[in-house]
């Protein structure tokens, strides 16, 4: 039969509202019953019964009042919630009765959950959320490789772009080039991060302008269409949020652009570096203007390109169609794509470009903090277990009085989950109030930093972790307590021995777990620390001390004819003048000029293609090498000694044969066992092949100017007197005043031309340590977590051994009374702790080996199974364990047998 349950939602809410309103009194029932009985009694009287009989009959007919009342009451509210509230009230009273225990437990959990949630909020923003553009799964970056000649992530050519665009795989393909421009017109020429993009760039990303419009995606202008879109930040900063900004002109370098749009405040560009992601001006470019490099396949002028897949095309399908396209292009243009070069085009999810580098360190941190939380849970479980013993009598009595075991377990679990929720709330509160501070600890280079927030997902995560943690650390003690045999406990009460064998075993297992987990963390931290230390102390190959570098940008008008620094001798004249005047700046003893790429550890990849003169099988393929233009002073200033040959001289000028200085790695790679001096290469920059040969005139030592990790990346230096470049860097060495020098240097340069911006002054030692910032951050975090874990494990073993010792006081007393040496007692207790520590270490070592191999990519110069780290940290762990055991062991040793036996 269907019954009347179909209206249950209505019923549920009615009951819930009763519950909320606290309508628990059964006054209505009582009143109705009274009325019912009165009427029945009256009827009975009318039927001829005596007064007493009538009343009695009425009551009998009504039925058992208690049972009816219970049924009524159950209907009135929700029994499940009712019980829960009752359990909660009881749990709160229990916690309030043990404030010391409660505060320690809550604090442990608060720190664990607070830290875990903090790291999670970073992971949530960077790794879990898709990029903040519509249909982000369709967005890819196009990456070209020539693995056959060891060239990876090379530029694209314009014909390739057109091929991809018309392949039918993508909705849009947009090349982009990042750089910076001089924005003039304000009081001080400003240097702004700039991107030239295909006109379809914003349409591809799926973003609209907040004010005005973005570029028209089908704009056919071959070169720059002189339209500019600016960021919300620039609009507010440089234009005072002028509502009439649209149509205003903006001088970028020496060209005039019209502002057509302002992006919304929450728009952040995509890209591999923080600078690119902070782009503030975009200009549309067709990349096909006659003023730009020629449009051949071998002229790879487009630094990088992003694309949006057609709807419904998966990444795999797109990649396989692209592979087919690549294969057919290889057949069609064998000269441009010789088979030995093994040309490949990869589609990389755009999100990977942005956060790919931080994925591993972030996951490592999340894992580390999760382990700390787990260890915290184990500690609280230990505390609860010890308390459960103290409450053994309570449990036994309640059980003897008929409380079902399930109810006891439920009660204890409610208590632990409550504890954990309180801890979680406290943790969230701590996180909330320290969030500004915490955000400052994170290196500014972390992608999507501005997206980190304490949002619903994060709160939900904290809630879930709290409940899980509570259940986790509450389960063992709850089961333990429910297993109590009431008769046994009640009979034993008052005797010395507390705690069953099972309890000791559970405690020991928990401590072993703790040790294992902390050892894993410690070893991970140790390996990271060693990697960091090795990198920190690596032989740089150059001397950054007392050196400052600053950037200088020469305007690059779209029409070369108007470029006053276009002819090499004009640029050379400016550089010579800077070198001459710069030497007289206060404190300066040496000065050099180079291109932006000559600043160690602080530049984009800047590859130049070249072919070797001597014929070998691969010589006609373009090779690629990192390149920079410098003045000859550069090498001495940075302490990079010349090994052979000579540096650039006053004679390496525009019309003289081109000279190059290479590093050892370059010579070793291309002319092993040969004299590199006098060898010739032909270079092509941005696809403009040099017609003349460049001769190697000198070899300098290798230096870690690319990355600290890389020992031998080939490098070629060209003479600033022979090749021009707009991105310049000025190097100064001496007893410099880092506060005053940038201003002095700017004045010096602007005395030559007031429109030249000098910016980005930095001390080279800062650059070196800055390149370690992210590594330092993850190392410090994991180290912090590791030390916390060690501390928690120490406290855990201390608590456990103390507990075991106190349970055995009588036993120890008897032993001493029977003549046992106090030293023997000490050894006995210590060996107990040692056993636990060693068991934990054994498990931990296995875990650490697995973890360290998983994080091998984050290590430098140290093997993932480095014996020194593994052994020394195991020893540290054992020492901490013994130290933690020593206090209870001393207590055991000092047991007074008379007292111990009398008390028992």
């Amino acid at each position, binding site marked *: 039969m269907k019954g009347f349950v179909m209206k249950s939602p209505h*019923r549920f809410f009615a009951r819930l509202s009763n519950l909320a309103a606290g309508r628990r009194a059964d006054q209505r029932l009582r009143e109705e019953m009274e009325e019912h009985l009165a009427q029945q009694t009256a009827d009975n009287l009318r039927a001829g019964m005596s007064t007493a009989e009538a009343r009695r009959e009425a009551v009998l007919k009504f039925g058992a009042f208690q049972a009816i009342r219970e049924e009524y009451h159950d209907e009135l509210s929700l029994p499940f919630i009712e019980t829960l509230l009752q359990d909660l009230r009881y749990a709160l009273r229990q916690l309030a009765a043990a404030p010391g225990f409660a505060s320690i437990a809550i604090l442990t959990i608060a720190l664990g959950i607070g830290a875990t949630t903090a790291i999670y909020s970073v992971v949530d923003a960077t790794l879990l959320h898709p990029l903040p553009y519509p249909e982000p799964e369709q967005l890819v970056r196009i990456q070209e490789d020539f693995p056959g000649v060891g060239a990876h992530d090379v530029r694209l050519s314009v014909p390739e772009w057109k091929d991809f665009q018309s392949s039918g795989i993508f909705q849009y393909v947009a090349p982009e080039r990042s750089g910076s421009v001089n924005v003039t017109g304000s009081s001080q020429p400003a240097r702004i991060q700039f991107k030239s993009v295909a006109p379809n760039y914003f349409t591809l990303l799926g973003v609209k302008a907040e004010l005005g419009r973005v570029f028209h995606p089908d704009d056919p202008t071959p070169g720059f269409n002189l339209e500019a879109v600016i960021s919300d930040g620039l609009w507010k900063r440089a234009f005072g949020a002028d509502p009439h900004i649209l149509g205003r002109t903006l001088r970028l370098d020496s060209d005039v652009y019209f502002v057509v749009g302002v992006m919304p405040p929450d728009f952040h560009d995509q890209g591999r570096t923080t600078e690119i992601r902070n782009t503030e001006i975009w200009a549309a470019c067709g990349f096909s203007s006659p003023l730009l490099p020629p449009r051949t396949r071998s002229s790879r002028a487009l630094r990088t390109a992003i694309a949006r897949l057609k709807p419904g095309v998966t990444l795999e399908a797109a990649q396989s169609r692209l592979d087919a396209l690549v294969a057919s292009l290889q057949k069609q243009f064998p000269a441009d794509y010789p088979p030995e070069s093994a040309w490949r085009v990869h589609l990389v999810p755009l999100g990977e470009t942005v956060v790919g580098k931080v994925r591993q360190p972030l996951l490592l941190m999340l894992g580390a903090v999760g382990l700390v939380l787990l260890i915290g849970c184990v500690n609280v479980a230990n505390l609860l277990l010890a308390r459960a013993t103290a409450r053994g009598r309570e449990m036994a009595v309640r059980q003897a009085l008929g409380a079902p075991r399930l109810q006891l377990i439920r009660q204890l679990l409610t208590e632990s989950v409550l504890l954990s929720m309180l801890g979680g709330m406290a943790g969230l509160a701590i996180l909330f109030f320290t969030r500004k501070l915490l955000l400052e600890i994170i290196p500014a280079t972390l992608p999507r930093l501005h997206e980190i927030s304490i949002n619903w997902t994060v709160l939900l995560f904290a809630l879930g972790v709290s409940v899980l943690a509570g259940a986790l650390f509450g389960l063992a003690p709850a089961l333990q307590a429910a297993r109590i045999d009431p008769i046994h406990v009640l009979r034993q009460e008052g005797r010395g021995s507390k705690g069953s064998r099972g309890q000791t075993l559970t405690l020991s297992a928990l401590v072993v777990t703790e040790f294992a987990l902390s050892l894993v963390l410690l070893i991970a931290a140790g390996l990271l620390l060693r990697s960091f230390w090795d990198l920190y102390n690596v032989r740089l190959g150059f001397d950054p001390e007392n050196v400052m570098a600053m950037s200088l940008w020469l305007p690059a008008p779209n029409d070369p004819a108007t470029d006053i620094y276009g002819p090499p001798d004009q640029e050379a004249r400016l550089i010579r003048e800077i070198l001459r005047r710069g030497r007289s700046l206060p404190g300066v003893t040496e000065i050099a000029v180079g291109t932006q790429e000559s600043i160690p550890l602080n530049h984009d990849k800047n590859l130049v293609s070249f072919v070797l003169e001597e014929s070998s099988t691969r010589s006609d393929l373009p090779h690629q090498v990192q390149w920079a233009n410098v003045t000859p002073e550069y090498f001495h200033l940075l302490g990079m000694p010349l090994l052979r040959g000579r540096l650039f001289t006053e004679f390496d000028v525009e019309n003289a044969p081109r000279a190059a200085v290479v590093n050892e790695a370059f010579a070793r790679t291309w002319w092993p066992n040969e004299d590199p001096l006098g060898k010739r290469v032909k270079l092509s920059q941005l696809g403009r092949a040099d017609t003349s040969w460049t001769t190697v005139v000198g070899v300098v030592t290798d230096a870690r100017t690319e990355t600290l990790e890389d020992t031998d990346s080939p490098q070629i230096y060209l003479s600033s007197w022979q090749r021009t470049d707009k991105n310049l860097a000025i190097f100064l060495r001496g007893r410099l005043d880092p506060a005053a020098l940038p201003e002095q240097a700017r004045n010096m340069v602007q005395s030559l031309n007031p429109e030249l911006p000098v910016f980005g002054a930095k001390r080279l030692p800062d650059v070196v340590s800055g390149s370690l910032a992210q590594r330092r951050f993850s190392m410090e975090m994991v180290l912090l977590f590791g030390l916390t874990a060690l501390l928690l494990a120490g406290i855990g073993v201390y608590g456990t051994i103390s507990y075991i010792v106190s349970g055995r006081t009588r036993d120890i007393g008897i032993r001493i009374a029977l003549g046992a040496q106090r030293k023997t007692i000490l050894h006995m207790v210590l060996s107990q702790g040692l056993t636990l520590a060693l068991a934990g270490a054994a498990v931990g070592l296995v875990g650490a080996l697995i973890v360290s191999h998983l994080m091998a990519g984050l290590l430098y110069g140290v093997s993932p199974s480095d014996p020194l780290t593994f052994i020394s940290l195991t020893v540290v762990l054992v020492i901490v364990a013994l130290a933690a055991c020593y206090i209870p062991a001393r207590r055991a040793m000092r047991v007074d047998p008379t007292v111990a036996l009398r008390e028992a």
Partner: protein
Amino acid sequence: MPEKSDVLQGTLALMVLKTLDLLGPLHGYGIARRIEQISGDLLAVNQGTLYPLLLKLEHEGAIASDWGASENNRRARFYRLTRAGRKQLQTETRDWEQTAAIIARFFDVKGQDLS
């Protein structure tokens, strides 16, 4: 008791709705007496079980209640059928009649009818 009350509760609820449908607003005692008169001993004992049921029906929205004055001028709670309750009664009546008919036919069938 619980085994019995599954069917009993269902039939009792149906009886309550039918009673209110026929007689209009009634207080608890009135409903109980009416059911007792018609069904005989179903409510001869445990009349009190009616009250939790009335509360449940009210929670479900099938009936509504208000305080009023009884015949002997005492405060009593009067129950009346709601529009939803009337609809429910119709459905339940139909269902019940169908079920009853099927069960009746089932009991009528004799051994030889099946062979």
